[in-house]
């Protein structure tokens, strides 16, 4: 068995994405196996008739099955490091036939004393790209091979003061391509014979004085002399 390359704190960057974990499609056997392994026999997961009478179209997977997948995602990412915290919110029900993909991204890295922590944002999507589970994890890594070697020999951890903080430019370059611009609503043209549209200020002048927002009225009285 090949020795997995280790992951060190010094090599992690905020914004790094984890290798996605693709799981095989879930069927009723997957659900039954998890029910047995976890001894969670909540009838909504194993009793089709009960699930229907409870108002569901049929049985569905334990949220904990998907959280187990998220645990696998984090454990495989940290390798020899440790997962210190794992949290999941079950957003959408997971049905038989769903094919799940687990994803994650580094949101923060920080030193606390002699310990180096990396925070992850993690989530699970189904085959339609819908968010089904959303969570977070905190992991602990060695700073570097040198830090690991010291600690394994029982020495004090390596303290590295100048942790690289990304500049604003770096953050923008990294984040900008991800920001999705929602499509603009089609411009609504006025009907052909409509009167020319009044400007916002003109519209407000048309309102009864009492309805004017006081701040704007005040601003206008200040502006007025400039227009001369």
């Amino acid at each position, binding site marked *: 068995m090949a020795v997995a390359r280790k992951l060190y704190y010094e090599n992690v960057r905020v914004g790094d994405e984890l290798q996605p974990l693709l799981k095989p499609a879930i069927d009723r056997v997957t659900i039954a196996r998890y029910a047995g*392994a976890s001894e969670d026999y909540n009838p909504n997961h194993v009793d089709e008739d009960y699930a229907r009478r409870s108002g569901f179209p049929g049985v569905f997977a334990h949220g904990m099955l998907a959280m187990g997948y998220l*645990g696998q995602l984090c454990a495989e990412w940290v390798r020899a490091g440790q997962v210190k915290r*794992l949290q999941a919110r079950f957003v959408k029900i997971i049905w038989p036939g769903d094919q799940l993909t687990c994803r994650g991204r580094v949101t923060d890295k920080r030193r606390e004393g002699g310990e180096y922590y990396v925070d992850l944002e993690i989530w699970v999507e189904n085959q339609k790209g819908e968010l089904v589970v959303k969570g977070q994890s905190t992991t602990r890594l060695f700073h570097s091979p040198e830090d690991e070697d010291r600690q394994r020999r029982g020495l004090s951890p390596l303290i590295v003061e100048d942790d690289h903080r990304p500049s604003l430019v770096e953050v923008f370059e990294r984040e900008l391509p991800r920001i999705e611009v929602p499509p603009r609503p089609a411009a609504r043209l006025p009907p052909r014979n409509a009167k020319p549209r009044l400007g916002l200020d003109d519209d407000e002048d048309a309102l009864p004085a009492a309805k004017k927002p006081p701040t704007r009225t005040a601003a206008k009285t200040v502006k007025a002399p400039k227009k001369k």
Partner: protein
Amino acid sequence: MLDKALIGRRSEPVVNEVEKGAVRRFAAALGITDEVHFDERAAEAAGLRGLLAPLTFPATFRSSIELREALALGQRGLLHADQSFEYFRPICAGDRIQVVAVIAEVAERPGATGPMDVVVVEDEGRDEQGNLVYRARKTMIVRPAPREA
């Protein structure tokens, strides 16, 4: 509306033995293939005392609170809404973990189809020396009883 007097109710400690077979079955049910969950030599090579339990394995631990009984749920169903774990050391086969559960919250929250009952249970697991091994917190939504068959 559930009985709010249950908030703070704490279970007696129950010892949960982490069994090799259970660790292997749990990892296999999740489709995890890492040998540290299956092969003792691989676990030992990784510096572990025994087969490594997958991260969500503490969900299988039992406490002496039978939630359905404690809350007098009758036929009402439970739906898992949120779960978190905090780990103080890896959990391995051979561990004997004392689990204490506390009902942390019983509340009514607005839901899509009207108010719903929500229960939060917190677990704490300690090893035989009394050292904290993990903490867990789960939020369950209580659903209406199913229609009669």
